[in-house]
């Protein structure tokens, strides 16, 4: 057994410095029980009033089968499903993978890399609507900053980004990645910081450096975190309304809509609220398996402790 394997085998608990559960698991009694319940009640109330009820109401609104025949026959619905799959599939995975790689870059101990990190997380702190509007003007065609720079620096006549379905969809994806990559880079940076130095030292003895270190040491250790984050991000991204609404506006001719914006359009522009809810709820066959895997993952990591 190589030294790396030894260290890896030794430490499924390596990221946690000892569980703190004290041996005698007392039952709560008397005033403690009252207090514990009192502490939980505010959240339980919020959860029931503002999570359970709206979700139940949404399911009820979307339960009429006739809504789905109306959806499928709608000209916009199927292209929207394709757009959503591309937006989420490409956006989330490219973002996560780049974030994982970049978190390694930001582990380097140089003063300028630390300073750069402060600038790099700026998109995360920048309000989404305003950032997306800025992107919209940057990509507005030959008058935008991007095409202006392309012409000035390389002499290329840039395209009209929002006049073409795939270019507009691509723009949405790039803006989405710009906005959300820093947050996940921070999460992965946190994950990498919990990997003890010894493992890398041991791996180095076995000749795992550079690319091989990433594939055989870092990635296996980060795999669970990576999966959990990717699933959570997929759920959040399926609901991303602002990016598409502000950057391409769903255009040209509604060809870059995603489910969130299409549902909004049905409900508020076309005054068909039930159809709008049905449109977004048609994502449930994707949402539920993701949520189940996510909860399992979070649960098993609880158990490991």
């Amino acid at each position, binding site marked *: 057994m190589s030294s790396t394997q030894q260290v890896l085998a030794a430490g499924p608990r390596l990221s946690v410095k000892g569980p703190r559960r004290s041996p005698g*698991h007392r039952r709560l009694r008397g005033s403690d029980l009252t207090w514990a319940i009192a502490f939980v009640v505010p959240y339980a109330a919020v959860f029931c009033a503002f999570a359970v009820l709206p979700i139940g109401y949404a399911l009820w609104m979307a339960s009429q089968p006739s809504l789905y025949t109306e959806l499928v026959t709608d000209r916009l619905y199927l292209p929207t499903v394709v757009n959503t799959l591309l937006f989420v599939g490409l956006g989330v995975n490219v973002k996560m993978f780049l974030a994982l790689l970049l978190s390694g870059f930001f582990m380097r101990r140089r003063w300028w890399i630390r300073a750069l990190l402060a600038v790099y997380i700026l998109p995360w702190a920048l309000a989404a609507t305003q950032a997306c509007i800025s992107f919209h003007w940057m990509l507005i065609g030959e008058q935008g900053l991007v095409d202006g720079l392309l012409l000035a620096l390389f002499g290329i006549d840039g395209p009209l980004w929002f006049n073409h379905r795939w270019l507009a969809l691509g723009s949405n994806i790039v803006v989405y990645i710009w906005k959300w990559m820093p947050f996940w880079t921070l999460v992965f940076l946190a994950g990498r910081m919990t990997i003890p130095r010894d493992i890398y030292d041991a791996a180095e003895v076995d000749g795992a450096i550079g690319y091989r270190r990433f594939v055989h040491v870092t990635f296996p250790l980060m795999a669970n975190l990576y999966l959990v984050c990717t699933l959570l991000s997929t759920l959040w991204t399926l609901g991303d309304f602002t990016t598409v609404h502000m950057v391409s506006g769903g255009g040209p001719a509604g060809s870059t809509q995603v489910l969130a914006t299409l549902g909004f359009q049905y409900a508020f522009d076309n005054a068909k609220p039930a159809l709008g809810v049905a449109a977004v709820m048609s994502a449930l066959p994707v949402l539920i398996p993701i949520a189940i895997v996510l909860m399992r993952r979070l649960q098993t990591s609880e158990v490991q402790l």
Partner: protein
Amino acid sequence: MSIVMAFSRPEHRNYRLRRVLTEASSIMLGLVLLIWSLLPVYNMLLIALDPEEGEVEFSGNLYPPEPSLEGFGAVVMQEARYLEDFWHQFGNSIYIGLLTMVLTVLIGSLASFAVSRMRLSKGSLLTNAALFTYVIPASFLIVPYYRIMHLYGLSDNLWAVIAAQVTFATPFAILIMQLYARLIPFELDDAARVDGASAVHLYLRIYLPLMTPALAVVAVYALLLAWNDYLYQAVLLSPRNMTASVTQGQLFVDADAPWNAMMAAAIIYVLPPIALLFALRRYVVAALPAGDVKG
């Protein structure tokens, strides 16, 4: 690693070359990241500093030829079209953002304290159920929310938006706080118990102070969630109670809006979360090693 050794032995030349190459490529990567992160911010400044009202065009100048603060002036004095009510709307945004932040930290920390520190039996059921909130993304629930808020008598009320934001921020807050709480030894609680401390005392004197980094992360997260929101504010509030975020977003329909002032307003709007992040950066950095979602 000793540099002297690298110089003295010829077989280390390869190693040196590799180091130089690594350094050069990381500087290149750093430059790319710098431009990538700052380009939209730069574009905002470029438009905001342009003296001409509707100007969003890039005229080939990397710096506005006649930079002017007219745009900012128009925002501050509320003179520009669409911005007549800017400070009132900005105040609404602050109100929603701050209350979302405070309530998320308060409700989330109370619940996760009860579940993870007081070991409320079946308490983990609640925290798991909390994640159930994320099964359906927030924006998918806007129609039911609109109707339910009407039912609760909260239509066109800032509290409707706050309730929605707290609902969607708290599950993540609880997750982060539970992960971080594992770093606090139970022995501390037990010792305080022996001294006769009550549950409230434990929460206030031990849990909250030791959890500061996690609370800071949660606070930033909650404020950003409220600050990023467009949809809920646009749908749940009427023009009378509008927020700054929505006014700027809605302008999409009007390409002739005074864009220099609009962008100046956008720049003012994006500052508070950045200031908060900067103020709390010490705690946020301290929470980093513990904040892994891996458990």
